[in-house]
Each structure stands twice: as C-alpha cells, then as structure tokens.
C-alpha cells in the first residue's frame, strides 16, 4: 500500500515486481504485425509505443506501476527529422565519395574514413538520445526521469573505446563496457535526484577471461573435428601450389569451421554477458538505496536461448514477447536495499526532447 508523508521513513523496503503476462504480449504482437503489413510498416512507431506502454506499466514498485508517456507521433517526427537532415546528407556524401573522386585515391580514402567516422559517431549519439527520450517519458509517482549530459561526448567516448579496444585485440572489453555504461547511467536522474553507477571493470575480468578461454577451446575443438573429416587427398602434400579446384573443395570445410566457430564463441560469451548483467544491474544507487539484481547463469542462458529461438522462428514477429521475457527476468529479480526518500525528491529539470529517437530509429536501433 502507498505510504504517505511522515510514515515513509519507517516504511518497509521497496518491492519491485513485474506483473506482465505473456498473453497480452502475444495479442499485441499479432495486432502490430497485421497493422505493419497493411501500412508497409508506417505503423511501427505507434506499435513500438504500445509495446513500451505495456512493458513499463508491468513494472511496479510497491504495487505502483511505472508509466510510459511517449507517443508514436513523437517517434515518427523524430525519425523523419533524422532521416532527412542527417542520414540523407550522409548517404549523398558516400555516393559522391564513391563516384566523384578517383577510386583508391588518397582523397577518396580520406573522405571515406571521415564519413565512416561520422556514421559511427551518429550511431552512438543516436543511442544516447534514444535513452534520453525513453527515460524522459518514464514517469513514477508523477515525477519523470531524464538523461543529462551530451550525446556528442558519449559518441566520442564510444568511438574512443572501440579504437582502443581494437588495438588491444579486445582485451579492454570489460573496461570499455563499464566506462561507456557508467557515462550513460550516471547521467540518469529520477526527479531531481541523480543515480550513481558503482561498477568496476575488475568485477568483470574473471568471467571475461573465462569466456575467452572457453571460446578458444570450443573453436579449436570444432576446427579439429572438421579437419579430421578432411578427405585424404585434400591435405597438403608439400611443394606444388594447390589448384583452383582444390581450393574450391576447401570452401565447405572453411565455412563449417567459421559457422561452428561463431556459434561456439557466442555461446562462450554467455558467461561474460550474464555476469555483466548482474554486475550492472546491481550497480545503480539512488541516494541511500541500492538496486540489486539476482541473475544467475542457467536462468540467463534459458532467457537468451529462448529469445533467440523465439525471434528466429517467428521471423521477428515475436520481438515484443522477447522483450517481455527480458523485462520479466530483470524486474522480478531486482530488489532494493535501503530506502528511497521519495519526499525529498523534487521535479526533474533534465532535458525533455520534444521528439524522439530519430537517429536510433534511422539506424535501425529503435527496437526496445
């Protein structure tokens, strides 16, 4: 029950619950699919809004639901703006670079690099702006959230870490993940109170290295298994260079190794992914309160594999159902330690963009 005023200080801890059921999500998925077909996907902005409304309102704190106050129209306008004013010039730039400059010339290569840089910068800025929109439309007890900070500096941060990570063959991944997440998370506010994000890369390195090692072992195992099925005559016999036909016969084996290898590595990363979810989910603080996420490996794997199969076998139709499963997983395992002094929280002064998510939708990241 809702506690008022003075009694809040002695209130029992906040309970977090997820009350959504799969049935309504199945019905919603069907409705959205049909409307998308009829409208050549023009409906997708409104569909997305309906899914979010259902997801958000399934999350309750002490029985009070979260609210999503965004509209499909705002998403639509945001998308149009981003497409026309950002994607279009970028596309024209690529086209002009492709045909307007001598191929392989230093000018063309430089221009392509510059355009690629802008492409990724805009991508990451779009992600930040999408969160800003979504959270500014997230309301609890009539107070809304916000994301402060600059999307530009977030974009540059992401690119910086990608480059740094590339130079270290991916070994900086936990550090990059924490830094990037922290930048976003520590800019999130509820009302006028800011969240803090207390996660350390060292909490993730154990499972990261475990994932890497298991990935290598699995990959080697698969490669060895495939090689052992080579016909005798394909093995190198010293001296003569292989003919084109011989090389062609290698192709299915190479593909098998690549495919198997990718599957193996994806499975191996599940260790890291689960740990990262648990650490990140337990890193949020608001005032004296700590959010903690009780995720576990087996249940996480069931969630991920279930969603992969769900989406693959329904050709994308079941995305809202997959999201419902994710939200259910997270919010039924989330608990709050300490109390949130709701009385002390004032209204938000953070940014509230009028239209949303244009860049993210234009890049195809509008989903969630």
């Amino acid at each position, binding site marked *: 029950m809702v506690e008022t005023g003075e009694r809040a200080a002695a209130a029992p801890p906040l309970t977090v619950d997820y009350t959504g059921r799969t049935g309504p999500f199945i019905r919603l998925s069907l409705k959205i699919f049909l409307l998308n077909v*009829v*409208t050549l996907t*023009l409906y997708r902005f409104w569909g997305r809004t309906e899914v979010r409304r259902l997801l958000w309102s399934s999350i309750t704190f002490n029985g009070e639901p979260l609210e999503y106050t965004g509209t499909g129209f705002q998403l639509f306008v945001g998308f149009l703006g981003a497409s026309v004013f950002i994607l279009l010039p970028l596309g024209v730039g690529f086209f002009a670079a492709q045909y*307007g400059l001598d191929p392989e010339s230093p000018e063309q290569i430089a221009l392509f690099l510059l355009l690629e840089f802008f492409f990724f910068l805009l991508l990451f800025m779009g992600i930040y702006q999408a969160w800003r929109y979504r959270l500014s439309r997230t309301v609890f007890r*009539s107070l809304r959230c916000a994301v402060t900070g600059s999307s530009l500096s977030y974009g540059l941060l992401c690119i910086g870490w990608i480059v740094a990570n590339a130079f270290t063959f991916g070994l900086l991944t936990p550090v990059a993940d924490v830094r990037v997440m922290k930048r976003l998370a520590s800019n999130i506010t509820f009302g006028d109170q800011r969240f803090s994000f207390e996660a350390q890369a060292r909490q993730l390195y154990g499972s990261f290295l475990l994932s890497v090692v298991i990935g290598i072992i699995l990959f080697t195992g698969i490669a060895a298994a495939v090689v052992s099925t080579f016909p005798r005559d394909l093995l190198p016999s010293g001296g003569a260079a292989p003919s084109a036909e011989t090389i062609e016969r290698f192709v299915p084996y190479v593909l098998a190794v690549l495919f198997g290898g990718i599957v193996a590595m994806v499975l191996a990363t599940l260790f890291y992914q689960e740990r990262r979810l648990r650490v990140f989910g337990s890193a949020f603080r608001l005032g004296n309160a700590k959010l903690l996420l009780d995720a576990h490996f087996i249940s996480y794997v069931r969630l991920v594999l279930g969603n992969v199969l769900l989406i693959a076998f329904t050709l994308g139709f079941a995305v809202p159902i997959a999201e419902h499963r994710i939200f259910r997983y997270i919010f039924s395992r989330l608990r709050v330690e300490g109390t949130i002094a709701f009385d002390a929280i004032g209204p938000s002064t953070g940014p509230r963009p009028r239209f949303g998510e244009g860049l993210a939708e234009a890049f195809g990241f509008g989903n969630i």
Partner: protein
Amino acid sequence: MGEGMVYSGLFFDGRSATPHEVRVLFCPASLSISGADGTELANWRYGSLIRLQSGKDGGLRLGAHGAGDARLVLADKAAIKELRTRVPHLFARRGATTVLRRAAIFAIASVIIIGALYVGVPRFAERAVAFVPISFEKRVGEQIFRSVESSWNFCTDETDTAAATIVGGLVQRLLAGTKSPLPVSVHFTNLGIENAFALPGGAIVVTRQLVASMEGPDELAGVLAHELGHVVERHAMIGMIQSVGLSVAAGVFLGGGSGSGEWMVSAGSTLATLSYSRRLEERADTQAFVMLRTAGITPLGMAALFDRLEAKAHPPAKDKSQKESPTADKNARRESSIPLILSSHPLSADRANLARHQKWKLGAPSLTAKQWATVKGVCASEKTKPTQDKKTKTNGKG
C-alpha cells in the same frame, strides 16, 4: 446522492513523489481536487481526462491533458461508478472499429506516400540531373566501363577499330544538328544477346549479335540515333538518380531493418522504374527520328528492326521462311511473355508504326556498301556465341 459528493483519493502533483490524500469533488464540468485543508490543488475538465494503466494497488489512475505528469488515484468504488456515469469515454473499450479506423488511416497514408514517390521521384530525377556536373557523370561512366571491361568481351582488333571509326563518322553525322553534352564513343562487344545501350558518360555499347541481325546500315543508323537520344538527354544518369532516389525514399520510409514492408516497397519502386524507363525510351525514339530526319536518313530502317523484334515476340503461325536460331527463340519468348507494365520498353509494334509515320527526306546513304561490310565484320576474332549470323541482304530502301 448526486452532485456534491466528495470522495477520497490519492494525488501526485508532479512536483514531488509524495502522495497527498485529497478530496475529490465531481463538479458539473470538471473534477476538483482539494487538499485536506480545502485548498484546491487541481481542477481537471472531464474532456481532458486520461485513464492510465492501473497497478496492483487496484486504484483507477487518472491524468489530464495539460496537467503534465500529475496523477490522481481513485480507490473508492462509488467514486469510480460516478466517474463512469459522467465520463463514459474513459471506460469505452477500444473496440475493433477504432483499430480498423486507425489501420485504414495508416493504409491510406501509406498509399498516398507511395503514389507521391511513384510520381515524384522520376520528376525529381529529371530536374536533378541538371545539377550533376558532366565531369561527375564521365567519371561514373568510366568506373562502370572499367568494371564491366573484363566480363564483357569488347572487340578491339584492327577490323573492330576500323568499324568503330566508320560508326564514329555516322554518329557525327547524326549529331550534326544537336549539341551533345557528353563525348560519344561507340564500342562493340560479344555479349550473346542482341542489344545496344548507352552508359552514363556517353559510351554506347552495341552487341555483335545485334549488328549481325541487321539487314542494312539504315537499321544501324536508327539504333545509333536512338542511343544518341539517350546520351543527349542524359537518360542513364537520370536512371541512376531515380534508383538512388527510390532506394533512399524506401529507406526513409522503412527505416533500418523491418522486413515486412520492404518487398512491397521494392516491388513498387521496380514498377515505377520500369514505367519511367518506358517514357525515356519513347523520348529517345523521338530524338532519334529528329536526328535521322536532319541527317537525311530514312527511319524505315528503324521500323524494319522493330518489325523483326515484333515478329520474334509474336511469331506468325507458320513462318518457315526464316530459320530461327535457338537464342532468338529464347529472346522472343522472353519478350512475348512480358506484359507491358513489366517491360522496360514500349511495344515494338507501336514503335515500328511510329517510325513508319515519320516524315523523312533522303540524303546520302547512311553507309557505303564497303563501310557496311566492314561494320558487319565486327567482332569476327572473338569466340562466336550460339547465335547464327543472319544472311546480309542490302535493304533496297537504302
């Protein structure tokens, strides 16, 4: 007991997260929300009320347009009953009719947008080509040429170069009255099909098979004039702008990654491209007639070519006089099975008729017999493809 009933509720004013116990009064046109001390905290007109999803606490949650994020939670069953009587629209189930109406609006909007694209993109491409510098188009053409050079067997030995020079002379004669924005070059290739096309940048490619099928130099003049019509109006570039424009429009419409509508939009844009290319082909024909007339060459050669294409597409019942080659049969079957809406060219029969009705005057022959023989011998050194050479008979019409 009618008006004046006061109920209790919980109010969140949007300025803090503290719930306030309030008194809710149903006024004639609005809901009045007052604090325990009687001061009115909010007054919400019934028409502005919004109903939100309820939580497990069971209360009815209300907001109002213009009231920001403020919320009123009513748990009192009697209050909810009174609300239902005064503001029925809050409780109306969003029935199938609303969904259908929405779907209809969206569907109509989509159709309008697609229609606008179908009509607007080609027009835009025509205007936009004026802004594309010639140097850019030449570069595009060079790139395309370079990319097909290896897979298309271009004929480049001595006979071919001689033929190209002869044809170049004919091209200059055809271009006499017209100013071409692009430099024209003619290339012969052994592609296995009877065709000719104009690339961006001014290169014209004619296949050996097409030359072999011709019965006189006037037919070649007609084909060249038609391709020159494309070059002079920069149709290849317009076509490129159009397909880029349509794919950009499709991308804007569909956004990134959503499979279901893509095939429909791409089908629509293919139809649009084809219809527009028919228009461009008609324009090239018109230009060709003008060029032929100015150069003093009869358009009947062109007509004969179209007649032959038409005959292959719709062969007369028992025509044993011509030995049809297997490839020509395949080409004919291909053309006859394509309905107009899917064809990139207007009907051959129509084009033939149009050609026959053109006014013309006779000037010097398009090519001398010796020149024609050289041109007919083009691509002799390339490996021959299945098409058999037609017997050359000089056309009595000159």
